[in-house]
């Protein structure tokens, strides 16, 4: 079987969907860990050492921790530039790419663009396609199986996407507050308006003046909900949510791959939480 | 006067008959030591009001250990220490005080602590009586001029005066002082011993002092306790009894004992 290691668990779910029984997939980061910082295990190093394919997001998301593992694993197949290393950001249209010469004191953390794109199932689809292509290139004898799996996955997802969009139609144009700038693709997909972020700048904890502004803006624009990933501290969000008032919706950071959750189920959960948020129920 | 090598030691007080009220502390077959190892033979002794007991003995013989055991700061190897009542107040000057060099405490504040005992810190302010007692104690210990100085900036002798003042301020019944005058100059040493003797006599307290100055100890104390690990021996009695005891003479020579002709080398360590 093709041994596949992915940086984050959403990628693992996608790889499993495409590879089926012909691949053995491991994710370096569990869904609950902030993908910017990951604490790996020795046995994961073993997996990396034997991997045929390492799939990462790219766009500097994993820059803080992946290179050490990648270079230390003594596996030439997965080094940057080898066919065994795949950065999937190339398959999607990157948002929030800094246009001007980056003033790095103001910009996003990620100079290449926003890497948090797997919340958008359309991006998930594109990525799955890219993964399938690479698997086929590496493991030609199972090409048919990969194509079949991809087709099945595409069909399922394409069936689900309109339903999800239907369920979340109410979000179109709705004012929302997000914690971190992870919502660009989600907003692009669902059409809501992320009026402001609780973090004054990505990665920087909220400060009083900013919170006051956010609160003012939220009340003024009647924000429908506050959105944040489960790996960020919820203290401030909770308080702001209480004061707006608006429900606090905590969304999973990725598929719970260890527990066997698929990408489809993961987006379903995300949608359900958002739907509840629309109904005024927090998470 | 019972005294003996290996034998338990009896402490006859000046008023042996009116026991009970006068008795403050009692050691019964008390064996002191560390980690179950005895340092000295069992000690039997009673400390009564009005006693001024000086403890003497070579370095490392266990004097400080005995004090710590009396105060309950350390477990005895065997035997027991009795206090005559829960209301017997004690005070202690350790040989090396554990007061931190960082502590920004003034000598007067330190002496004020001497006024605390039991739960009486529940009264948050010191009374007029406290303040009078503190000033008197500072005066009497010769610590008046250093009362407002930070304790940590004092010279060693001045530190000892401050600690002495604290002990005087406690108005305790039983006062244990472990070489309280070691760093004091000769004048202060005599003054201190005189003061303590006076206290024992007039205030009817029991004062127990460790001292290496045998002459001063003999001059002021009304009882001496000699401890020796070599013999081993625990000898209690007046100056002559102790100074003429063979174990004592083995350690310190014959020159302190009036019954023995002075040997060739004055005050020198004799062969025994």
């Amino acid at each position, binding site marked *: 079987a093709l041994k596949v290691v992915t940086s984050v668990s959403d990628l693992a779910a996608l790889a499993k969907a495409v590879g089926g029984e012909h691949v053995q997939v491991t994710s370096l980061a569990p869904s609950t860990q902030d993908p910017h910082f990951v*604490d790996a295990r020795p046995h994961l190093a073993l997996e990396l050492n034997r991997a045929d394919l390492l799939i990462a997001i790219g766009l500097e998301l994993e820059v803080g921790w992946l290179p050490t593992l990648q270079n230390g694993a003594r596996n030439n197949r997965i080094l940057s530039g080898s066919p065994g290393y795949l950065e999937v950001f190339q398959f999607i249209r990157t948002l929030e790419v800094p246009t001007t010469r980056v003033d790095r004191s103001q910009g996003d953390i990620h100079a290449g663009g926003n890497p948090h794109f797997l919340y958008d199932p359309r991006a998930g689809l594109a990525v799955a396609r890219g993964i399938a292509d690479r698997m086929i290139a590496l493991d030609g004898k199972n090409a048919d199986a990969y194509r079949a799996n991809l087709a099945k996955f595409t069909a399922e997802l394409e069936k689900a996407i309109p339903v999800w969009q239907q369920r979340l139609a109410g979000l179109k144009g709705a004012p929302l507050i997000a914690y971190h700038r992870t919502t660009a693709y989600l907003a692009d997909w669902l059409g809501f308006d992320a009026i402001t972020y609780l973090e004054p700048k990505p990665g920087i904890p909220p*400060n009083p003046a900013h919170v*006051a502004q956010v609160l003012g803006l939220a009340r003024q624009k009647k924000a429908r909900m506050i959105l944040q990933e489960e790996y960020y501290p919820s203290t401030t969000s909770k308080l702001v949510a209480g004061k707006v008032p608006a429900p606090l919706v905590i969304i999973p950071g990725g598929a719970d791959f260890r527990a066997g959750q698929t990408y489809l189920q993961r987006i379903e959960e995300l949608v359900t939480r958002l739907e509840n948020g629309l109904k005024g129920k927090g998470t | 006067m019972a005294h003996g090598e290996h034998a338990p030691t009896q402490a006859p007080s000046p008023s042996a008959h009116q026991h009970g009220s006068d008795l403050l502390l009692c050691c019964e077959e008390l064996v002191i030591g560390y980690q179950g190892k005895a340092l000295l033979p069992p000690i039997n002794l009673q400390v009564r009001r009005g006693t001024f007991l000086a403890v003497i003995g070579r370095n490392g013989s266990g004097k400080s250990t005995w004090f710590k055991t009396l105060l*309950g700061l350390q477990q005895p190897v065997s035997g027991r220490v009795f206090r005559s009542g829960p209301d017997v107040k004690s*005070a202690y000057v350790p040989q090396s005080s554990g007061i931190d060099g960082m502590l920004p405490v003034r000598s007067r504040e330190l002496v004020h*602590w*001497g006024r605390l005992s039991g*739960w009486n*810190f529940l009264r948050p302010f010191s009374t007029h009586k406290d303040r009078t007692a503190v000033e008197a104690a500072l005066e009497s210990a010769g610590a008046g001029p250093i009362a407002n100085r930070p304790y940590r900036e004092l010279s060693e002798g001045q530190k000892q005066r401050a600690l002495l003042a604290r002990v005087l301020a406690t108005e305790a019944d039983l006062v244990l002082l472990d070489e309280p005058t070691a760093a004091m100059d000769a004048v202060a040493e005599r003054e201190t011993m005189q003061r303590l003797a006076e206290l024992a006599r007039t205030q009817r307290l029991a004062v127990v002092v460790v001292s290496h100055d045998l002459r001063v100890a003999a001059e002021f104390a009304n009882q001496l306790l000699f401890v020796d690990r070599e013999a081993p021996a625990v000898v209690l009695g007046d100056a002559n009894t102790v100074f003429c005891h063979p174990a004592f003479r083995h350690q310190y020579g014959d020159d302190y004992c009036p019954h023995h002709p002075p040997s060739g080398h004055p005050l020198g360590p004799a062969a025994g």
Partner: protein
Amino acid sequence: MDPQLVETTSWAQFWDAFELFRDPMLCALIAGSVLGFLSVYVVLRRMVFVSAAVTQSAGLGVALAFYAEIHLGLHVAPTLGAVILSLLATLLLMMDPARLRISRESMLGLAYALTGGAAILVGDRISQEAHDIQGILFGTAVLVEQPQLIAVAVVGVLTLLIHLWWFRGLTFASFDRTGAMVQGLPVRSLDAVLMISIGLMVGVSARALGALPVFAFSTLSAIAALVLDLRLPGTFLLATIAGAISGLGGYLFAYFYNFPVGASQTVLSGMIVLLALVVRGLKQLLLGRASR
């Protein structure tokens, strides 16, 4: 959007939104002053890193509570776990470290490392909830919830009251343990009162404000006061004031210059220490000059 935001934060706006800031500022003020007061004990009893050890232990407590729930099916409230473990860490402080031939700081280091490491290991087996641990233990100081403010206020006021009332006993027992034992003071009880009040105050304050400012209040305040070499009561007073200024001033600084609150309070604490060092230097210079 952001640059505009920064420009428009003025006093007028501050008063407009004062209702929003009142609670967190009050909380910072109380926590700052009470921890400032306690910091004198913390520093002089050589347990500077006590807040680090207590919060780490609390983290292990939360992790264990989750573990019990997930793997053993026992329901233990995470806060209960935090309280139990941090009380255990506090009790550890009541032991006499000299008996074990180690210093108090070593004991704290042991507690800090062991509970920190264990929390990660346990957290690894409860990964779904692991991210909550930080959230449960640490606030962000920007806003506080009513219950947290109440906890800080109640624990703070009680602590201050009992500490002022028992001031003589607590200082004696803390700074001359042997002397206090000999004079019959209930040294163990006094120690327990002190350590538990430190543990509690650190716990509730960290819950409201975060770990770093609590560390700063509970150490730097006393360091600033000690550097100035005052009497003991003056040291306590100054440490309390330094803590209060750091708490409140740090919040205002964070508001007007758009900085994170906890870090601002911490840096302000540190600045007060540096100021105290300068004052000390000037004083010595003047004293030295004057007498020549």
